[in-house]
């Protein structure tokens, strides 16, 4: 019913990588176990995060070929922290509206403010430090 936007997807990938380094296939499987994403959405995410230096790659030989592992960088951890904070705020606001019917008088303003924040995050790509 809901789809992850690019900043949330970035965050989820970073969060999985913050736990341990992973290669494309098992990273995809890890994420798919929890939430349904199309198999082909992860590669662009990884490539983008790599370009933004949120993660680095290294190759390890595996049964006669190379396996490319992805590792989160310090900048990636920082970004993950920001995404987690923004998500928590956003989730609280959505709960206020969706679950409680909007108790706060100015909740719509807060939602708006948060939306622009998330949009800005998308726009910025990886430039935020």
């Amino acid at each position, binding site marked *: 019913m809901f789809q992850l936007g690019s900043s949330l997807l970035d965050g989820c990938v970073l969060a999985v990588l913050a736990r341990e380094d992973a290669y*494309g296939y098992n990273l995809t499987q890890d994420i798919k176990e929890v939430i349904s994403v*199309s*198999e082909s959405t992860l590669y662009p995410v990884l*490539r983008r995060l790599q*370009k933004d230096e949120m993660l680095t790659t290294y190759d390890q030989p595996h049964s006669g070929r190379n396996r490319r592992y992805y590792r989160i960088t310090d900048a990636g951890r920082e970004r993950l922290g920001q995404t987690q904070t923004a998500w928590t705020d956003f989730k609280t606001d959505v709960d206020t509206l969706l679950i409680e019917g909007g108790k706060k008088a100015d909740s719509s303003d807060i939602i708006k403010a948060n939306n622009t924040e998330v949009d800005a995050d998308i726009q910025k790509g990886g430039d935020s430090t």
Partner: protein
Amino acid sequence: MSTSTQAPATKLAFLAQLEQKLKGMPESEIATAISYYDEYLSDAGPENEAKALAQLGSPAEVAAGIMGDYVHADATSDNKTVVGGLNNIWVVIIGIFAAPIALPMALAIIALIFSLLMAALSVVFSFFVTAAALVLAGLAYLGVGFFTMATSFATGLLTVGIGLVAMAIGSALLIVFIWALRQIINGVAVLGAKLLQRWNNRNTGREVAS
């Protein structure tokens, strides 16, 4: 685009088609994408290959995802590669939207210039015709006048006079015509040279910029 939406049956077929669909991207980008999916399908294992291929979808869709994100990342990053502030994707989008307007507009401008030129030429030509007609009519009057002088001297003299006046006005107009023609030819030549120069400047300028 109209190729089958069915997933290819084998890893090699998938990779070959994906590479085909990614054409136009930088070589390094294509190579990275191909090796990722090569590795992905190998990691899925031979027993899961068919299932993994089906889940990945058509190479065209996968390629579209890669290219879309690549262009997007390029457009939103404010560093390297992209020439100015305005980036590739916007130039393309503006170009696409402008094409239906710019093309007819260019045609209209060309048509307008052409018709103005034609109007100017026809005014000049009508001058010429009038002048020539006056001179010829003057000659005719002159001839008739001389003949008439034999029978009626006064009428003949008047006719000769009218003829001379007509010839004078006609030759004056001819002089004006020659002058106007010269101006127009000069004007067109100067305008053409200017346009040519501007065009050249713009082209060389663009080459320097890129």
